[in-house]
């Protein structure tokens, strides 16, 4: 018999979640005793809200918002894993007008999703740049203004947008915020304390099945995306080549000597200190590494 478990993804169906799709298709979750329900995300879906509302048991989140919610709203969250060891978010620009490091941003227009503004400002400060020297405007995940030169750079997934830009006939260049001091995880696996208490074994099962899925998917990043063309990727409006690019690009950001989803002492420390720069003061007890140890 399987037990139901619901997960809330961070975005619409794309290669960012290929490991889970694989796990579902291959029956890894069923084998682990789970009846997994997968909820897609989107720009207006705030994954943390879904678990607070009890609509899902676990969610993939960005740690800045999660830890901010714990410290400021008293949200009862625990982070039990991290899909991305290095946050794929970076500054993307056109090769013909390249922005290769933070100081290149001075005097330029940078489009940033409003939630990420404080992250960018923290990264700028870490690199000795006054945020007021950069013209920050809202970004809504459409690269057209960048391609057309209305903005000089945008903050987006470096695993994804460069492909889009190349499709538009331009060449992109990018750098990760991570590589310039903003050392946070991303797609952290978050649960509420209640769920952690009640469904601990199911969560462990989910972690181990997901690991299996990701291992298999990233063994050769070009193999699996085409298999989802008529299932998970149908009708998303994206192309399989795009997903293959994404899948390939994200591999180095997910791998860790400790295996997928790893939460290492150093990693947590780096994440917390980076967030500290933004004024988000978290602590190590917001992470529960014990499930990974069992998975």
């Amino acid at each position, binding site marked *: 018999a399987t037990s139901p478990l619901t997960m809330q993804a961070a975005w619409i*169906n794309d290669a960012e979640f290929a490991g889970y799709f694989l796990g579902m298709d291959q029956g890894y979750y069923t084998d682990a005793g789970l009846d997994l329900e997968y909820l897609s995300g989107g720009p207006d879906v705030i994954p943390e809200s879904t678990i*607070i509302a009890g609509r899902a048991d676990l969610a993939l989140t960005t740690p800045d918002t999660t830890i901010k919610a714990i410290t400021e709203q008293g*949200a009862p969250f625990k982070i039990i894993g991290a899909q991305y060891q290095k946050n794929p978010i970076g500054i993307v620009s056109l090769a013909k007008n390249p922005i290769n490091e933070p100081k290149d941003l001075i005097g330029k227009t940078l489009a940033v999703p409003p939630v990420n503004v404080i992250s960018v400002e923290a990264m700028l400060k870490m690199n000795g740049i006054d945020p007021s020297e950069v013209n920050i405007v809202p970004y809504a995940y459409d690269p057209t203004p960048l391609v057309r030169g209305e903005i000089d750079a945008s903050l987006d997934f470096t695993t994804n947008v460069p492909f889009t830009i190349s499709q538009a006939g331009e060449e992109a260049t990018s750098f990760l915020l991570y590589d310039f001091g903003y050392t946070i995880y991303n797609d952290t696996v978050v649960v509420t304390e209640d769920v952690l208490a009640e469904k601990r074994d199911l969560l462990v099962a989910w972690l181990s099945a997901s690991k299996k899925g990701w291992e298999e998917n990233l063994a050769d990043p070009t193999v699996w995306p085409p298999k989802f063309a008529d299932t998970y990727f149908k*009708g998303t409006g994206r192309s399989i080549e795009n997903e293959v690019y994404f899948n390939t690009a994200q591999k180095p950001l997910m791998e860790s000597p400790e295996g997928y989803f790893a939460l290492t002492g150093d990693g947590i420390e780096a994440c917390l200190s980076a967030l500290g720069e933004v004024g988000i003061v978290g602590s190590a007890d917001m992470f529960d590494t014990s499930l990974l140890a069992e998975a």
Partner: protein
Amino acid sequence: MRRHAVWQSTGLRNALILLALWEIIGQLGLVAGGALPPPSDILIRLWQDRGDYPNHIGATLYASVMGFLIGNAVAIAAGVAFALSPALLRLFRGINIAAFALPPIAIAPILALTMSGMAPRITLAALGVYFVTMTATVIGLSQADSRAEDVVRAYGGSRWTVLRLVQFRGAVPSILAGLRIAAPNAVLGAILAEFGGGGRWGLGTYLLGSLGRGEPDRLWGIGLIATLIAGLSYAGFALLSRRLLGATKAVTLNTAVPTGGTASTCLSARVRMALATVLLPFALWWALIKLSGAPAMIAKTPGDVFEYLFLSQGAAAAQARLLAALAETLPITFIGMAAGLAFAFLLAILSRLMPRFIEAFMPVALITQTMPLVALTPLLVLILGRGPSLTLWITISVTFFPAFVTLAQGIALVPKSAEDLPRAYGASRWTEMRMVTIPASLPYLFAATRLTVPRALLGVMIAEWLATGRGLGNLLNQSRGYLDYGMIWSVAAVSVILSVVFYQLVVVAERQVLARLGMATPE
């Protein structure tokens, strides 16, 4: 018969000219450095994507049709109740305006968390149509011919009989105008709900997936399909309206002055009424939160918001942020209001003076109503930059349509005999408009204003959220990411309260002006 055919072909010709113009502009990349794709590219792309569409269209169609039906049924029933009881109308004012002026980006996620399946989409679509149809119903019913009402009353007809025999049929063109506005609102509502719902199917979901790909032709294809859905419904109601209009117009202008109506009751009753009017929306807010069973961290009651803004630890900081955002948002809101109204009035007047031109413009107007602004903003930013002109443009596009359709309908309802007089003295079309048509449709002009004013703030907030990164819109969006629900609800409450205030100002002006001119006031 023949005149009709000729008319249609002229409208068609103008539309074709417009399309050809678009093609040329698109091909030559004249607008926004080529970010506006020509229609041919859009069509080719539509054809290539044809496999993707059926599921998406099906989902959006289902949600928007259901929302349209439910929202309008409620709206018409409520409109009838409000027309029968002005006190009820006053009581529900706050709630009505909230339904219209609440930012979808604020409610869509909350609906998604408290409902499941298609329900959030249907609800948002229904919310999108409720206010306009309700307003149209009330104005239509209130402008019924009192002479005909006298006949029914003289035979002992009840209030209900008057409603059934005189008012309702007289209001049909107005209600149809409401339904025409409701059509694009329902489609847009369904699409916006998809952004916050995380479902797999729907034009909104498709748009999201495509948004990151920087392919304007795809985005336009999706927008045009959404417009087509709304447009078919719009055209259906427009046709029906045109068929019924001739026989609905009074043969002669009614000169009767409306009787005093609600005699001002005693002071204590008025105070109680005012109190109830203010309290009811908050009570309903509170009740909805309690009924939804949503967790306290997400769903804030009026009390929670009060605490957040005035009692909590961070109250001072929250207040400061809110006030700073307001200071940025309010000035441009007033300008946006004026601009939206002016544009609507201009179009309505042109629809009388140059009907063919406006007919050809209607598809463009519909696109602005159904195409989600997220998809349009990158293009607009390229054309207009990220300054006040963009904010005005977005505010106009969010506000003008309901006002325009309402006013145009009011103008179309003016009896022909009223215009005979200036015509007999050789008046120009404009003089005729100025002296007869516009004054005669003044009640509709005010209704149009009431539809515009509370929405201006929403328009400005959308522009801030999508393009300028300032003010209330930005604060709202940022707070969403931080799960700062106290601030989200504060912004929502403040924007609704402000909208109610703007609305109330129009109502006061309307009452005074219409009473002075001996016209019936719906509010």
